[in-house]
C-alpha cells in the first residue's frame, strides 16, 4: 500500500483520495472499500472512496454533521447497498455473506435507536443471540451466559427486568449496546454509541470496547463526535468532510489545530492532560 | 322489473316487447319515464329503495304481508290487486280464480288422503344446510290447499323461510322430501349431498322417499301457486306408495 502522509490530504484535492490504508501493520484487512460511493437522486452523499480497515483495529469516524459518517457505516453494515464501487468483508464480497453468518461476525448499532415494544432489557439482549441459535435452535446455556455477560459489561443488570420503553435515553442506549454485545460478533459498527451517555458511562463503554478489542481482537468502527474520546480510545481516526475522506491516521497525527480546523471548521487548542499522558483538544 | 327472473321461474312465456326496468331495489327511472306507464305495481321495498318512481306514475302498492296461515289468501289478493289495477273486469278475475281453485281441489282428490307430511326444501351447495319452506311460504299455502301436511313446524322468518342445519331434519322421519332443483346449482349440490354423511342417514333419503321439482317463483301470486301445484302433484304420483 503506497503510504501517503495521512493528514496532508487537501479536501479539495483529486476526487479519488489516496487509499487511506492503515499505515501501522500489514495485518489482514477486515473491510476493503474500493471506489465506494453513495448517491441519492442527483446528490452524491459519499464520493467514491478507497478505505481499508484492519482486523482488531479500533477506528473512529469523525466529521461534521452530514459528512456521510452514517451513510458509510450503513453500507459497511449492509443496511444499504453502495451506488458505486465494491466492499469486501473478511476477504469475501459483502453481498456474498449469508444473512446469519454475516450477523455472527458483524453487529451494527444505528444512530436513531428504535423503540422496542413491550420488551424487558433482558429479553431485548436475548434477541442478540438469534444469529447463533436461529429460528429453531435451543436457547442454550451458552446463550444465557453470553446474555448475562453482556448485561454485566454494560452494567444493566440492575435494570434487566425493566421495560425498555420506560428507560431514560442513556439507559436505553446501553440496553441496545447489551444486545449488540450478546451477538458476540467479531466486528462492531457503532453509530454514535455514546451520544446519550453521561461522561462516566461514555468512558465506561469506550474502555469496555477497547478492552474487548485488546483481549479478543474484535475490530470496532465507531462514529464519534467527541474528538478527545476518539483520540483517547481509538487506534486510528478517519475524518470525513462533505462525503470525502479528508484525513486518516493515528490520533497523534490528527490531533493538531490545523487538521481539526479542516475537519470541524473550528479553531481548537491542543492541551496536554494534567495527570494522564495524553493530549486533548478544546474548542477555541 | 327483473324480467329475467320471471322468465326463469314462471311457466308463462313473457312477450319480447316487455321491457326490463332493472332490479326491484333500484328501478331505472329514465327507462320507466320513457315507457310512461299508466300505473305502477310495486311492493313496499321498491318504494323505500327508489321513492322517485312515484313521480312517474301513480303507484299501486302490492299487498305483501300475510296474516298467520293466510298465504294462499295473500296470493289471491296479489292476483286480484293486479287485475283490478289493470282494469280487468271482475267477472273474468273471478272466473280465473275459480278455474284454479277447482283445478287444485281436483288434484286434492286425486292424491287421496296422503298420510305422509311433506318437506319442501332447497339444500345448500355445500351439503350442510338447507332452506326449508315453513308456515307462511307459498309452498306451505299450496300444500294446505292440497290437504297435505307441512313437515317443518320450526321457527321461520317473515317470508316463511328458514335456514337450518341438516341435523334439524333428523326428527322428520316418515316425511317425504320435496327438493327444489336449480339448474345452475344442481351439479355441486348433488355432489355435496352425496358426500354428506348426515344427509345419507336421514330416514326419508334412506327410504328413497325424496322427489325433486324444478324451480318456481316463491314470492308470487295465484299463478305461481298454481305453477307450484302443477309440478308437485305429478312428481308425488310417480313416488311409490
Amino acid at each position, binding site marked *: 500500500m503506497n503510504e501517503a502522509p495521512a493528514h496532508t490530504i487537501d479536501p479539495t484535492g483529486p476526487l479519488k483520495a489516496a487509499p487511506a490504508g492503515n499505515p501501522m501493520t500489514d495485518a489482514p484487512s477486515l473491510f476493503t472499500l474500493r471506489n465506494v460511493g453513495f448517491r441519492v437522486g442527483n446528490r452524491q452523499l459519499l464520493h467514491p472512496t478507497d478505505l481499508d480497515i484492519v482486523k482488531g483495529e479500533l477506528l473512529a469516524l469523525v466529521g461534521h454533521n452530514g459528512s456521510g459518517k452514517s451513510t458509510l457505516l450503513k453500507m459497511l453494515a449492509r443496511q444499504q447497498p453502495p451506488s458505486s464501487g465494491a466492499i469486501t468483508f473478511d476477504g469475501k464480497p459483502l453481498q456474498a455473506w449469508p444473512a446469519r453468518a454475516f450477523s455472527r461476525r458483524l453487529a451494527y448499532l444505528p444512530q436513531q435507536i428504535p423503540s422496542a*415494544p413491550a420488551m424487558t432489557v433482558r429479553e431485548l439482549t436475548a434477541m442478540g443471540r438469534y444469529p447463533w441459535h436461529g429460528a429453531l435452535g435451543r436457547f442454550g446455556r451458552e446463550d444465557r451466559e453470553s446474555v448475562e455477560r453482556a448485561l454485566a459489561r454494560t452494567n444493566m443488570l440492575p435494570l434487566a427486568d425493566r421495560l425498555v420503553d420506560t428507560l431514560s435515553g442513556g439507559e436505553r442506549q446501553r440496553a441496545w449496546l447489551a444486545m449488540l454485545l450478546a451477538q458476540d460478533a467479531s466486528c462492531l459498527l457503532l453509530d454514535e454509541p455514546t451520544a446519550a451517555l453521561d461522561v462516566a458511562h461514555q468512558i465506561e463503554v469506550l474502555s469496555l470496547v477497547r478492552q474487548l478489542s485488546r483481549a479478543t481482537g474484535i475490530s470496532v468502527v465507531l462514529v464519534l463526535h467527541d474528538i478527545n474520546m476518539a483520540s483517547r480510545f481509538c487506534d486510528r481516526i478517519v475524518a470525513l468532510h462533505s462525503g470525502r475522506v479528508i484525513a486518516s491516521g493515528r490520533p497523534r497525527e490528527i490531533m493538531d489545530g490545523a487538521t481539526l480546523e479542516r475537519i470541524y471548521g473550528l479553531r481548537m487548542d491542543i492541551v496536554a492532560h494534567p495527570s494522564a499522558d495524553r493530549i486533548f483538544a478544546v474548542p477555541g | 322489473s327483473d324480467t329475467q327472473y320471471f322468465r326463469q321461474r314462471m311457466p308463462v312465456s313473457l312477450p319480447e316487447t316487455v321491457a326490463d326496468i332493472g332490479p326491484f331495489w333500484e328501478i331505472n327511472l329514465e327507462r320507466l319515464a320513457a315507457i310512461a306507464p299508466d300505473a305502477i305495481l310495486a311492493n313496499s321495498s321498491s318504494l323505500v329503495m327508489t321513492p322517485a318512481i312515484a313521480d312517474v306514475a301513480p303507484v299501486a302498492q302490492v299487498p305483501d304481508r300475510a296474516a298467520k296461515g293466510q298465504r294462499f289468501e295473500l296470493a289471491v289478493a296479489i292476483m286480484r290487486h293486479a287485475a283490478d289495477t289493470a282494469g280487468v273486469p271482475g267477472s273474468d278475475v273471478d272466473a280465473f280464480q275459480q278455474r284454479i281453485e277447482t283445478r287444485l281441489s281436483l288434484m286434492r282428490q286425486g292424491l287421496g288422503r296422503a298420510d305422509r307430511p311433506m318437506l319442501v326444501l332447497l339444500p345448500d351447495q355445500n351439503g350442510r344446510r338447507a332452506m326449508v319452506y315453513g308456515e307462511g311460504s307459498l309452498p306451505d299455502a299450496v300444500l294446505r290447499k292440497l290437504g297435505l301436511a307441512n313437515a317443518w313446524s320450526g321457527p321461520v322468518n317473515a317470508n316463511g323461510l328458514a335456514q337450518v342445519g341438516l341435523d334439524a331434519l333428523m326428527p322428520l*322421519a316418515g316425511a317425504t322430501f320435496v327438493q327444489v332443483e336449480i339448474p345452475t346449482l344442481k351439479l355441486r349440490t348433488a355432489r355435496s349431498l352425496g358426500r354428506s354423511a348426515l344427509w345419507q342417514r336421514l330416514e326419508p333419503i334412506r327410504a328413497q322417499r325424496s322427489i325433486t321439482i324444478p324451480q318456481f317463483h316463491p314470492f308470487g301470486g295465484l299463478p305461481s301457486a298454481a305453477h307450484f301445484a302443477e309440478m308437485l302433484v305429478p312428481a308425488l304420483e310417480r313416488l311409490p306408495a
Partner: protein
Amino acid sequence: MTDLSTAAPRPVLRGASIGVAALAIAALGLVFFNLSTVAGSESWLQLLFAPDLEDPRQTVAYFSTFPRIALAIVTGLALGFAGSVFQAVLRNPLAEPGLLGVTSGAQLALAASLLYAPALWTEGYELVALGGGVFVFALVALAASGRGASAPAFILTGVVVSLYCNALYGLLILFHHDFLSDLLAWQAGSLQQSGWQSVARLTAQAGIVGLAMLFLLRPLRILSLGDGPARSLGLSPALVKVSLLGLASTLAALVTAEIGIVGFIGLAAPALARHAWPRQFANPIPAALVGAALLLFIDQALGLIAPYAGDIPAGAAAGLFTGPLLAILAVTGRQADRPRTDRMPLPSRRLARPSFALGALATLLVLAAGLSLLTGFGDGGWQIVSPTDPDLPWHWRLPRLLGAAGAGACLAIAGLLLQRALRNPLASPDLVGVGHGAGLGLIIAFMIVPAGAVWSKLAVSAAGAAAVLVLVAVLARRASFQPERTLLVGVGLGSMVHALLVLFLASGGPNGAALLSWFSGSIGAVRIAEGVMVCVVALATVVVALVFHRWLAALPLGDQTSLSIGITPRIARTMLFAVAAVAIAAATMIVGPVSFVGLIVPHLVSQAGFQRTRDIVLACALSGAIFLVGADFIGRNLAWPWPMAPGLIAALLGGPIFLWLIWRGRSQ
C-alpha cells in the same frame, strides 16, 4: 397528558385475563350442556368412537354436534393465530387475516370457476379457492416488496386488491342471481356440519400451515424491533414478512374456503389476548387459544338457542359478541400512544406545481360531469343529448350527478380526516359505524314497517346512522379519543351492527338482495333535494378541512409535539371526528357505504405527489367526486337497464391506478 401505562409490568391477573378464563370455562360448560341435551345419558367417549347409527339422536351427535365442536376449536385457533401474526407483522390493530385479499381472492376464484369452468371445479373446489388466494397474495407481496415491504405498503396494496376482488365478485353475482342465496349463506359463515370430512380436512391443512408458522415465531419477535435491527440480526425483513403473511393468509383462506367468512374473530382474539397479556404481543399462541375459546363459546351459545331462533350462523353472530367486547376493551384499556415505527411509503416525488395538478383534476371533474349528463346508453344504443334538449335527461340525471359528486367528496375528505386524526392508514368511513347504522335502519324499515306505510329511505337510514353515531361518539369520548382505542370502538360497534345485517341477509327473502346491493352503494334513487344537500355538506366539509389543515398536519407528528405547540390532541381529534361523522352520514344516506372512496382516495392523492395539507384536502375532494361521478356514469350504462353499484366500479377504477402509483414509486 400522555398517561404512563407502560410502567413496570403489573401482576399478571389483569381484568382481561380473568375475562378470558371465564370465557373458556363458560364455553366448556356450554359444550357439556349441549352434548347432554343431544346425546342424553350415553357416555360421550362411547358415543364418539362407537356410535349406534340407528338411533337418530346418536347420529346427530356423531355427525353434527361433535364435528361442530371440533370445527369451532380448529377455526378459532387458526383465525386467532393468523390474526395475531397479521397484527404483529403489520403493527396495526385493524389488521385481520382477510386484509391482504386472500379471502376475497379465494371467493372470486370459487365463483368464477363455478360459472365459467365447472369442469375445473369438480375435482376439488378447495384447490381452486386456494389457488385464487395464493395468486392474490403473490400480487400483493410483489407490489409491497417493491416499496421495501414496509407494513403500510402491505396494508394499502392488500386493501386495494381485496376491494378489487370483491368488486369483480359483486359483478359476477349481479349477472347470476342463483348464487345470491349461497353468497349470503357463505358470508354468514355457519359452522354447521354434516360429517367429519371437512373438519378432518381443515384440521390437517391448518395443522400443516400452523406448524410451518411455529418455526417463524422467533423471527416474528425479532421483526417487532423494526426492519433495521432485524436486518442486523441476520434476518431479511422482507422475506420473513412475506412468508409470515403468506402462511397466515393461507390459514385464513383455508377456513374461508371451508366454512365461509367468520368475521372479527381474527380481529378480536388478538386484541383480547393483547389486553390480557400485554407482554405477549408478538406471540400468537395466546391469541389462538383465546380465538378458540371465543368461537366455541359463541357457536355453542347459538346451538343452545337454535331450537327457538333457528340455526344462526356463528360467523356472522361472532360480530354480535366480539363487537361489544372490542368496545369494552377500548374503553377500559389504557394503551399509551405507541409511536409508530413504520412510516407510510414515501411518495415517489412531490408535485412541482400542485396548483396546476388541482386545476387538471377540476377540469377532469367537469368533463366527467358533462359526459355523464349528456350521454347515456338507451334502447337504441348510445345516445348523445344536446345540452339544449328538453328537460328529460336533466330531470333524471342531474340528481344522480350531484349526489355522486357530493358524496364522493364527503367520503374522501372524511377518510383523510380520520386517517390523520387516528394516525392509521386503515381508518375509513366504515369506522364511524354510520354505514352500518343506516343499513340497520333499512332492515327495521323492511321488517316492521306496516304494510302501506312508506318510510323514505333517507329518514330511515338517517335514524339508524344517527343512533350508531351517537353511540360511537360517546364511547370514543370515554376512550378520550386516543387513536388506537377509538379505532377499537369503531371496529367493535361496526362489527356488531354488521353481524345484525349479515344475519338478516342470510335469513333469505327478497329484501336480502336489496340490502346486499345497498351495501355496495346505489346512486339511482337520489332525488334532487338529496343531491343538493350532499353537495352543500361536501363544500362545508372542504371549508372546515381547509380551515383546520394545521391540525391535520400536526396530529401525525404525535401527541407530544402537538401538545408542545399548543394543540390539545383530544380536542382536535374530537372536532375532526365530528366533522368526518357528519360528512359520512350525509354521503351514506345518499349513496350507501362506498368504503373504497373514503379509504383509498387519501392514499391515492398523497402517492400522486400532493404534499401540502391544503392541496391534499382539495385533491381528495376533487378525486373523490371524480371517482363517484365516473362510477355513476359507468354503473348506469355498462349493464343497462340494470345498475352496477358505484362501490364496485370505484374499486375497479381505483384499484389499478393505485397499484400503478405504488409501483411507480418503487425506485426511491
